[in-house]
């Protein structure tokens, strides 16, 4: 079974500063996908960034980047130049690389607050 662990229930960061959210996972799969989703108070989950396990290069999307350590099964999210709109719940998620059902396995989330 796949498990995803987010050990930081809550974090805060000053506006314009950088923050890193941690995520570890456990799987016996060799190929898979990892994701970070953002859930603002509106409840709608929004994809922030995606990483394919077979790619060694860390994914980046503007102010968001990941540190993917496959051997350590670690997938942290770095948010640079934090903005007030980044305040939300952040979920790390795992997906097997397979045909058929490709549901996401989620961690329990980190609540991030950006302080003005």
């Amino acid at each position, binding site marked *: 079974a796949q498990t*995803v662990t*987010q050990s930081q229930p809550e974090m805060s960061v000053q506006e314009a500063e950088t923050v890193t959210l941690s995520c570890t996972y456990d799987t016996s799969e060799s190929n*898979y*996908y990892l994701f970070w989703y953002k859930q603002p108070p*509106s*409840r*709608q*989950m*929004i*994809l922030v960034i*995606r990483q*394919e396990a077979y790619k060694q290069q860390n994914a980046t999307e503007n102010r968001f980047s990941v540190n993917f350590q496959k051997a350590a099964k670690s997938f942290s999210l770095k948010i640079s130049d934090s903005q007030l709109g980044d305040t939300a719940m952040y*979920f790390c*998620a795992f*997906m097997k*690389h*397979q*045909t*058929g*059902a*490709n*549901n*996401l*396995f*989620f*961690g*329990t*989330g980190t609540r991030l607050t950006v302080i003005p």
Partner: protein
Amino acid sequence: GAGVSQSPSNKVTEKGKDVELRCDPISGHTALYWYRQSLGQGLEFLIYFQGNSAPDKSGLPSDRFSAERTGGSVSTLTIQRTQQEDSAVYLCASSLGGGGVYEQYFGPGTRLTVT
């Protein structure tokens, strides 16, 4: 174009009653997922539909839960004889196909409260 929509936004029901939750996926998306988000928890997979294939029901927590997808589009999640532990936000997502190459687009969810 429109995103994934869900209705109702909020539902309060009495223990023992049946409820139906609706999901309208993005037009043209063949894959549809239902997830449940309990208070303080991550999302838990419930069921997956892909085109005309038989659904993957492996995540349904009990036989009180069922879902259907009509015409490969709209989906309804039904919970019979609701219990207090069914209180949660139920999220629907759709994607162009199955697999991680396809982004899952989520709806705003239905918050179900069982009293």
